[in-house]
C-alpha cells in the first residue's frame, strides 16, 4: 500500500472520529478544553503507533485464535507507559483526563487498527498508519475541543496560556449535551461536504 494513501486515509478519508465514528467515548468526554483534547490525542497517537509496530512485528507469531487477547496485552502495555509518562510530566492534565487514560486500552480505534491493518501489513506501513490515524484523531479532538471551549467558556487556553477571551459564553457547550451537539453537527457538516463533492460511495 502506498504511504501517501495511508497518510491521507488516516487524516481524512478514514478519519477515526468523523468517518468511522470510532473512539467516541474520549471524544465526548475529554473535549471540554483544547489542552485536554490535544493531550488525549497525543497519548492515543503514541499508543497507536507503538502497538501497531509491535502487532505488525508479531503478526506471524501470534496464533489466530488468541489474537485479540494478545493485542490487548500489547496495547495495555503501552497505555500503562503513556499513563505513567503523563502522570510524571503533566500531572494536572493527567488528573483532568482521569479514567480516560487507562480507558485508551479499550479504545476501538487502537484495537481496530491492530486487527484490520497492523496484523496484515508490514512494519513500516503499520507505523505510518498508526501515526496518521492518531494524528487524524488528534485533529478531530482538537477541533471539537476548540469549538466547545471557545463557545462554552468564552476563552481559549493553550497549556496554561490564555490565547484570547471575550465576555460571552454559552455554558451548555462545555457540559455533556454540548459534546453530543458539537460532534453531531460536525459529523453532519462533513457528510454534507462529502455529499456535495459526490465522493461518498
Amino acid at each position, binding site marked *: 500500500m502506498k504511504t501517501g494513501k495511508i497518510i491521507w486515509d488516516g487524516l481524512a478519508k478514514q478519519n477515526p472520529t468523523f468517518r468511522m465514528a470510532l473512539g467516541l467515548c474520549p471524544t465526548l468526554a475529554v473535549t471540554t478544553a483544547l489542552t485536554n483534547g490535544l493531550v488525549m490525542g497525543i497519548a492515543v497517537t503514541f499508543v497507536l503507533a507503538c502497538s501497531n509496530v509491535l502487532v505488525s512485528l508479531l503478526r506471524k507469531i501470534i496464533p489466530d485464535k488468541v489474537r485479540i487477547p494478545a493485542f490487548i496485552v500489547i496495547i495495555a502495555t503501552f497505555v500503562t507507559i503513556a499513563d505513567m509518562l503523563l502522570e510524571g510530566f503533566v500531572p494536572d492534565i493527567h488528573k483532568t483526563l482521569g479514567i480516560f487514560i487507562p480507558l485508551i486500552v479499550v479504545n476501538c480505534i487502537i484495537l481496530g487498527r491492530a486487527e484490520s491493518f497492523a496484523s496484515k501489513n508490514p512494519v513500516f506501513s503499520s507505523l505510518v498508519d498508526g501515526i496518521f490515524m492518531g494524528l487524524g484523531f488528534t485533529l478531530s479532538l482538537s477541533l471539537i475541543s476548540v469549538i466547545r471551549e471557545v463557545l462554552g467558556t468564552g476563552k481559549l487556553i493553550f497549556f496554561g496560556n490564555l490565547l484570547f477571551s471575550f465576555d460571552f459564553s*454559552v*455554558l*451548555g*457547550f462545555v*457540559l455533556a*449535551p454540548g459534546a453530543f*451537539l458539537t460532534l*453531531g453537527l460536525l459529523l*453532519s457538516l462533513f457528510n454534507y461536504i462529502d455529499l456535495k463533492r459526490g465522493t461518498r460511495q
Partner: protein
Amino acid sequence: MQSQNELQRLVCSSSPHVRSGITIKKIMFAVVFSLLPAAGYGVYLFGMHALLLILSSIGMAVLTEFGLQKIFRMKVTASDGSAIITGLLLAMIIPPSAPLYVPIIGSFFAIAIVKLAFGGLGSNIFNPALAARAFLVASFPVAMTIWARPHVDGITGATPLGMLSESGMSAVLDHFKTKIAMYSAMFFGNTSGSLGETSALLLLVGGLFLIAIRVISWRIPAMFIGSVYLCSFLFGKDPLMAVLSGGVFLGAFFMATDYVSSPTTTIGQIIFGLGCGMLTVLIRELASYPEGVMFAILLMNCAVPLIDRFTKPKTLGQK
C-alpha cells in the same frame, strides 16, 4: 377531448379523499390566538422588556426556519405559523428580565437543532420550545433564574415555588399574608415567574378555547393537572398551590399537547398526561430544581414512541 376528461374522472388519487377545512396554518394560528391573553398579561405585568423578549424570540424563530430552509434548499414552511408558536412559547417560559440574547439563542436552538435537524415539523422528538429552555437553563444559569417582581422595575424576588423549596410553606404564606391571597395571586397571575406562565386564569381560558374548537383534546391537560394535584396531595403539599404555581397550566395545555411530541392514541394520551404530572411532582419534591414541568414533559416526550407502540388499537378482526 371529451373522452380524456371522462378518463380523468376515473383516475384515483391517494387518500385522504374527504378533506376538512383544517390546515396546519389554521391550527397554528388558533394556538397563537389562545396564547395571546397570557402573553399580553405578561407584557402588562413585566413591562416593555417582556414585549421585546417576545418579539425577538418570534422573530428569530421565523428567521431561522426561513433562512435554514433556504440555505439547505428545503421546502420553506416558515409561513405555516409553527415557528411563531415555538418563538412565542419560548418567550413565555423564560424569566421576564432575561437579556435579549437569551430568547434569540434559544429560538435559534429550538428551530435549528430541535426541529429542523430532526427533519422539520412533524419529525421532532422533543417540544422545541421546552428543549431550548433546557439548553438555556444549562447555558445561562444566572440569567435564567432571576425573576422580576410584577409591576416593579429592577427588583427581583423568588417565585412561589422557589420560596417553597428554599424556605418552606410558611415563607410563602408570610409573603402573601393569607392563603386566599396566595391562591388568588397565583390564579390571576400577580406573582413572579416566567413571562407567560403566571396567570392560571388566562392560560385556562386559552386552553379551554383550544379544547372547545377541538384543536387539542382534554385528556392530556386534565390528566396532567389531575395527577399533579393528586401526587402533591400524597406528598403532603398544598395541592391547589401545586397546580396553580409554576408552569403546570402552560405546560399542560400548550406544551404537553404538542401534536408531534405527544401520543396519538387515546389511552396513550392518558398515560402521557399522568406521567407528566407524576414526574413534575417527583422533580419538585425530590430533585434540586424547584420546578419540574419542563423536564417532566421532555422525559415523557422520550417515552412517546414506546407509549404509542404499546397502546396501538387493534385493527378490525385482529386477534
